[in-house]
């Protein structure tokens, strides 16, 4: 995973709540078997409207998405995270994220920042007034900074450390391989097995 320390970029105000993962990346894009090439599918239906915020020329190259509450609800598709990253987003700010989306984002180095709705609205006002305004998302200092806005955010220490170091979760878990083996040895025999019935090993 690519490490995330601090990022400064222009913002996109997405004044919508309950943005579900079907809006972020529609299902027909999920047929792809790669982790890249999803940028054109990002918000595909909404982007057909030339007035949609992402289509505005002043938003080109922006890298911090500032969204309404309950961002990423619905399906578990990690493709939603890949689509945001493929498009060029490094961070998403919202007052509340759906759990699975949040987990997926942090495993891919897309920083999802939870801030109070009033701070989200302050960021909306700032970037709508001045689209060139830059927003800094600082994971080291756990702070979002922009003209007239300084907001601390929380992120659990373990997730933060993995992001800062760009660590591979699987590698970390495999350091506990002996513990996993010990757990397996004490599992009861009645636990289910998918081994085909009648199969011999």
């Amino acid at each position, binding site marked *: 995973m690519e490490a995330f320390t601090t990022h400064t970029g222009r913002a996109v105000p997405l*004044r*919508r*709540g*309950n943005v*579900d993962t*079907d*809006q972020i990346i*529609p*299902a*027909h894009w*999920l*047929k*792809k*078997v*790669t*982790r890249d090439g999803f940028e054109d599918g990002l918000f595909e*239906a909404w982007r057909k409207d030339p007035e949609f915020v992402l289509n505005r020329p002043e938003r080109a190259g922006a890298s911090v998405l500032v969204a*309404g*509450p*309950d961002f990423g*609800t*619905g*399906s*578990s*598709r*990690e*493709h939603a*995270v890949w689509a945001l990253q493929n498009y060029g987003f490094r961070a998403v700010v919202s007052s*509340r994220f*759906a*759990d*699975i989306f949040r*987990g*997926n984002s942090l*495993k*891919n180095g897309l920083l999802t920042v939870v801030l109070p709705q009033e701070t989200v609205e302050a960021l909306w006002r700032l970037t709508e007034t001045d689209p060139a305004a830059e927003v800094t998302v600082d994971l080291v200092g756990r702070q979002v900074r922009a003209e007239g806005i300084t907001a601390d955010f929380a992120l*659990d*220490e*373990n997730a933060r450390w993995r992001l800062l170091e760009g660590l591979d*979760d*699987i590698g970390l*878990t*495999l350091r*506990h*391989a002996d*513990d*996993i083996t010990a*757990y*397996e040895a004490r*599992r*009861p*025999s*009645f*636990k*289910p*097995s*998918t*081994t*085909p*019935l009648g199969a011999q090993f």
Partner: protein
Amino acid sequence: MGRTLAEKVWDDHVVTRAEGEPDLLFIDLHLLHEVTSPQAFDGLRKAGRAVRRLDLTIATEDHNTPTLDIDKPIADPVSRTQLETLRRNCAEFGVRLHPLGDVEQGVVHVVGPQLGLTQPGTTVVCGDSHTSTHGAFGALAFGIGTSQVEHVLATQTLPLAPFRTMAVTVEGELPEGVTAKDLILAVIARIGTGGGQGYVIEYRGSAIEKLSMEARMTVCNMSIEAGARAGMIAPDETTFAYLKGRPHAPAGDDWDAAVAYWRTLRTDDDAVFDHEVVIDAAGLSPFVTWGTNPGQGAPLSAAVPDPASYSDPSDRFAAEKALEYMGLTAGQALRDVTVDTVFVGSCTNGRIEDLRAAAAVLDGRRIADGVRMLVVPGSVRVGLQAVEEGLDKVFTAAGAEWRHAGCSMCLGMNPDQLAPGERCASTSNRNFEGRQGKGGRTHLVSPQVAAATAVLGHLASPADLAGRTGASDVRTPVEA
């Protein structure tokens, strides 16, 4: 202090616990399908890793599979590639796969329970948010992303952040004609699509205890639509009776040991939930959605709400956008909303009891002119059972299309889709914009409401068919 069902299952799966680190949990059952697994297998290949526990892993094909002409090559080359990729990956890594055409194929959340693989007190994961379905057995079951799919394949564990507990207590009797689907839609409308965020919900109370296993699966299935991490129901005699004798259920001494363990899982009397919601079953009625998220629902007898009635500005804006997308007017009676499509199926309502319920309404009746109705069994086994009971004949005689098993019209990944502007009464779980096809409009309903809607051509419940002849009204009782 006592522990809840969810806490007990969690505690029994902790592999490592350390200050400042998420618990590492062992995963008992990993279900795979074609959509969220290809990149995970790629990751394994790149790192030179194997699947740690092939005996706890099983795959099927469901999202992309067509429900017609399944003996012919899949027309969409991208869908075909995705299915072929799953087949190649399963062959290469040695994973048990039930592909299209196999008798055990079907929607992954229908297949696991019917094989008896989903059991109380287990941890179940799948790269699909509706994995919450399996919580109906008292399993801790949740959807995961592709990175986590790779993690489970490689380690059979997941590091997981702690959760909070919520009790949704439903007491009393569900009125005649009110189903598990109506109940869960009402719960979601009550707590909102984000109301369950961070929580594992336990559904409890006398109304929940009276539900069949299949109805419990419908309830737990939609926990994710309330934003919950999982939904669970304590295992009881109904659970044990459902499991006994299933292909992968424990047998002999193992059965006795398993049941003894399962009985210990119930939430202790002195356990405390972080949050509780109480619902009176008797106050529920057939429930439908009018908007573009599953929380935007109302009783069928109500009218489309006026966005101006919402005090919260973002709710008001969401309602305005939803009415615009759905082509509805505030104040319009929901019963006046006409549909052109009806879909019965999905991991929410594609099991045999759902098909029986829809068939009972359609028996001896015809669907309205101009309405297209798809009935899609959740698995091949469900389809075979329906045929044995003659339900397929009831559906086709009524003018509905009887299809092969799969996710079908629940999501726009296979040929079963709405055209732009088409309106569907659907027994599936999501009414998001474009979910059933670009520009399609979805009303979430129970199988009974779906069938009555198909007959009348507008949103309706079986009670609205009173006085209209159906086989159940004219048939003479069979002599014993």
